[in-house]
């Protein structure tokens, strides 16, 4: 894990007290779904993103919500896809596969369902049967019943549902607090990199709000932690040290 702010939160690999009680690692996972020894309780994420996630990965059986579809969703899926997971993308016709591939997703393991239509819950449930990771943009209003049913499917299948939009029961919520592209001048240059401040909070062990500065994508196309001290622009309102944002909000 490459947290830039040491000591501000527990290392994700440390046996947190809540860990054994998290649903996907619950006492009795559904029989017949035992995975091989190589599969842990979380799907891997890119090293730079580990610090944002309470267990350094996407906990299987959980819902991760990102406020709006964008590169962040794709970056979250990248490492798992590179690791061999299939990624279903439902309801997001504008998903940029090229950018996804640049971030590390394996385009050969992507299933696109651009328009799941009114029966989208069944479509997502079917996708969850086959793919470990499903990226979904639900329609505006999702009834609680549909939500719970999908979550139940999710826990049975040990997948991860990555929602681009609002999902009230999400275990983890990610937001892009700010983003700035570099490289564009006044009539010259081109987009090179984006520096973004990502905030994560959620429920349970993710309840602590974490904020990280990331290069997403960086100059080399990858994702890297950004050091608030040497951003190519000014963060005027707070001294860089205070931008750690990893504020412990509970005792």
């Amino acid at each position, binding site marked *: 894990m490459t947290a830039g702010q040491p000591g501000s939160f527990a290392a994700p690999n440390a046996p947190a007290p809540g860990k054994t009680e998290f649903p996907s690692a619950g006492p009795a996972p559904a029989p017949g779904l035992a995975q091989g020894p190589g599969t842990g309780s979380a799907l891997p994420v890119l090293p730079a993103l580990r610090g944002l996630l309470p267990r350094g990965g996407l906990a299987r059986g959980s819902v991760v919500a990102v406020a709006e579809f964008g590169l962040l969703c794709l970056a979250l899926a990248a490492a798992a896809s590179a690791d061999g997971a299939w990624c279903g993308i439902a309801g997001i*016709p504008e998903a940029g596969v090229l950018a996804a591939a640049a971030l590390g997703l394996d385009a050969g393991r992507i299933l696109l369902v651009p328009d799941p239509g009114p029966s989208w819950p069944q479509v997502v449930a079917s996708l969850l*049967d086959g793919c470990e990771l499903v990226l979904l943009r639900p329609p505006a209003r999702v009834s609680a019943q549909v939500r719970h049913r999908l979550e139940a499917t999710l826990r049975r299948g040990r997948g991860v549902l990555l929602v681009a939009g609002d999902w009230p029961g999400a275990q983890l919520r990610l937001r892009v607090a700010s983003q700035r*592209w570099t490289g564009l001048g006044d009539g010259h240059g081109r987009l090179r990199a984006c520096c973004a401040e990502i905030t994560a909070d959620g429920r349970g062990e993710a309840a602590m709000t974490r904020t990280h500065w990331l290069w997403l994508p960086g100059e080399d196309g990858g994702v890297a932690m950004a050091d608030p001290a040497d951003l190519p622009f000014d963060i005027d309102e707070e001294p860089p040290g205070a931008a750690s944002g990893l504020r412990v909000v*509970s005792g």
Partner: protein
Amino acid sequence: MVVTCPDLHSADLSADPDRDTARRHERVIAAVTGFCPDVEVVEPGVCAFGARGPARYFGGETALTARITAALADLGEDGKIGVADGFFAALLAARDGRAVPPGGAARFLAAQPVSVLAGRNPAARNPAAQDLVALLNRLGLRTLGDFAALPVRDVASRFGDAGEGAHRLARGLDSRPLATRPPPADLSVVQEFDPPEPRGEPVVFAAKALAGRLHDGLAARGLTCVRVQVTATWADGRESSRRWRHDGLLSAAAVADRVRWQLDGGAPAPPDDGAPQASPGDGEQYQPGGIVALRLVPDQVVRATGQQLALWGETLVSDRVARAAMRVQAMLGHEAVLRPVLGGGRNVHDQVTPIPFGEKTEPRLPADRPWPGRVRGTAPGLVFPAAREAEVTDDAGRAVTVSGRCAVSAAPARLAVRGEPPQRVTGWAGPWPLSERWWDPSAARRRARFQLATEDGRAWLAVLQDGRWLVEAGYWLGGLGQPAALLAGAAAPDVLGDRGRGSSRRGPSRRAAGQITPSRVAAGRDSAMGRTALPLLVQLPGRGGHSRRAGRGGGPARSRGTRPHRPRRDVRGAAVRAGGCPARRPGRHEAGHGVRRRADPRPARQPGSAA
């Protein structure tokens, strides 16, 4: 006897993407095979067979010719038939549709020009034969008769093997006997249901045995099929037909699964028939609209060479994924599940080719070309399927234009994408001109691309084409979730520079986060997530809203104690509740909120016991 179909003969099969011509050709061959089983397919649209036997059976060559012509006319094909001694003469006779009497081949051929030796189909012309024809013409040998009159030995010494072969043809001697093919066996299998089967389950069950027969039939011949076509026919004549990828990988049970999905996907049009997944309760009674026949047809039969799975490096679709994808395809249609293939191209839309799941994945444009003129650098995270209209204006509010010499009229200052509030442009680059396919008026386009960064931190790929601004792609990471409140309050320029209001924007977001979290902590974070998530799942369908409303502390111990039974109830509970809801609802109202299902039977039972 030679049968030709001029339409099919001149068609170039390789340039036929739909395989339509190939299918027509196959139908013609099948029709001809009905008259004589041993047919040699010479080339597309031409087939030959020995006429003596069939002609005697059908009452003479003329009668046979008439019958075959009629059969072809039924298929909508215009066939011509020639009869002669030997294949070459018959082929020439078929041009005019005439029958050369027995023994008359040499005389018939003598009148033909030597150019027939080169073949008629320009695509299939043999260059050696063409040279020979040109040479014979220069030597003054205009007809085959002239050529045939030359002594064999002189022809062989002067023109070599090719010349000798041609000389044999000219004399009416065939160069080789016909190589006929046995008729292909019908590998499809059918199961008929009498009386019609209204329920889906028996059909699926029969499909499993049927698929076993199909596989046995294929395996006995050392064959496998690329796809299998499943056709279900209903009593009222409706038919549902769909092709499923097979590749020799599916077991009988897997084929039966496809049948189930296809039937689940819905019977065509009027839904009044025994819906395939009708409830098992209405078992024996006969419904008029059941399924009468289920047919499995192997499509694209190929030799079974076995499957070698890749050890490394090749992305294989696992059975699990294929199953999921096909189930979605059964719901939404074949084109609804796509696999993206990265390719080349100059525009963001061209660089990814979506291909329906199960088909061969090949990019539309090859990736290994230089593609000068494409936008380089970071790829956009959002590529809008249809470009969004936009307006780009300068400081004075005039639309920004680009001249023929690629000069921008003014620096872009505002970007208004349709459907979103206008944004101030904080950085821009371009124009990058692109003039594509100018030689093809229907596909030609000239466009200038720009990258624009706006004050909300996002960036856009905008295109000016035919005087209109279009936004093709977007570069951003995500959003705050409450764009109305936070982004609107952030009239702050994000990109490069103006630093005034950044804090006012970032402030609220952090404060909001800070507000949310303590409240959640107060609700009991320690026990909240870890323990209650599971009971929440387990109790949900059976107990209505109880666990959600009653807070999170209560459930865990009990639910864990009864854990082994719960998941099953979870699955069944939803159906039970859905079915029994109307009956139960009054009871719930009487008893107030939070009545458990377990408590429901009691009011019913108590009156019973009292009486």
